[in-house]
């Protein structure tokens, strides 16, 4: 039987680096791990402490403070969305 080779996921270096931080640091204690397109908040992955750690990581990467008004679902829904909103612009 022919086995199909999975298509390689197209991720950017920013997505990979953010994914590594989230899974290895932020969710170090979690049994499950997230994918680039996993909904982070609907799935309950990120709590009120983790969001601050995540913001601190992003601020360090971009070298400036991220204003509170930019911390909205449209920019934080998934790893891919966060990377696109803050690390790839």
């Amino acid at each position, binding site marked *: 039987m022919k086995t199909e080779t999975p298509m390689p996921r197209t991720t950017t270096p920013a997505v990979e680096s953010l994914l590594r931080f989230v899974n290895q640091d932020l969710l170090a204690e979690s049994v499950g791990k997230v994918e680039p397109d996993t909904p982070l*908040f609907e799935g309950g992955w990120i709590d*009120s402490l983790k969001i601050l750690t995540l*913001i601190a990581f992003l601020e360090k990467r971009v070298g400036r403070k991220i204003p509170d008004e930019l911390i*909205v679902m449209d920019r934080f829904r998934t790893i891919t969305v966060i990377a696109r909103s803050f690390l790839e612009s």
Partner: protein
Amino acid sequence: MITETVTSTTSLPPSELHFDFLVSSDGLPTLGSGACELMRMLDAKFRKAALQAGAEEKHFPTLIPRQTLESTGYFQSFPGYASEVNGPGRAGNYLLSPAVCYHCYQFLADSSVEREMVITCCGKCFRADSISNGHLWEFTMREIVFLGSSTVVLEQRQSWVRKVTCWARALGLDAELSVATDPFFGAQTRGKKLLQQIKELKYELAVPGPAGISMPIASFNLHEELFTEKFKIRLKNGLPLHSGCVAFGLERWYLALTSRHGINRALELVEALK
């Protein structure tokens, strides 16, 4: 002492013009006949829509036991907002209700509900923090509270957002919906506040008020399991029970409508509202 008079261009008799909506320096309103009539009509519309959506009606006391507010975490979330009442022999036991929906959770405490439910209630509410911001200390709030699975509560909220936004626009108000950024329940820390902001737990519908300054006239809130856990309210099938609510500030609807149209046109528009 009356320090502020809010009036609108109306064809009411001159003797009544300046007495339709007066606010004391302590944020206590006195209403004239136009304001009474308009608020009564608005509330009748909201109440009817709630009943049509299957709501059970309740009327709760204006005073709320301290224990109930403590159970909601109110004093941590909104320090300095609540007004204490000192009755004979009951000093410190009661406060003026800052919202009517808290009574619902106390009413349902330690119970199991068969399936989703909707409750509507209206009452006087008091928030002492707002006086310095030019807001009312005492105001009238109609609330629609819904309990059910997270999906049901989210759908209810979205349905009311659509409905109320349509009403406001049909009444000629420039209504804008946005995610609220003011302190909300349980948001004592920056992390909690930002989490609520991202999860869009509170929407506000704002319209231009007197002098064109934007003011919220309704809020649409998701509480997740905050209140159902605190008050031990469960779904009989064992699934997590969520709650949410819609709240209407009736005086603000009056102010928005009369500053836009004047009292007589506002009355006509509300009467014709479908």
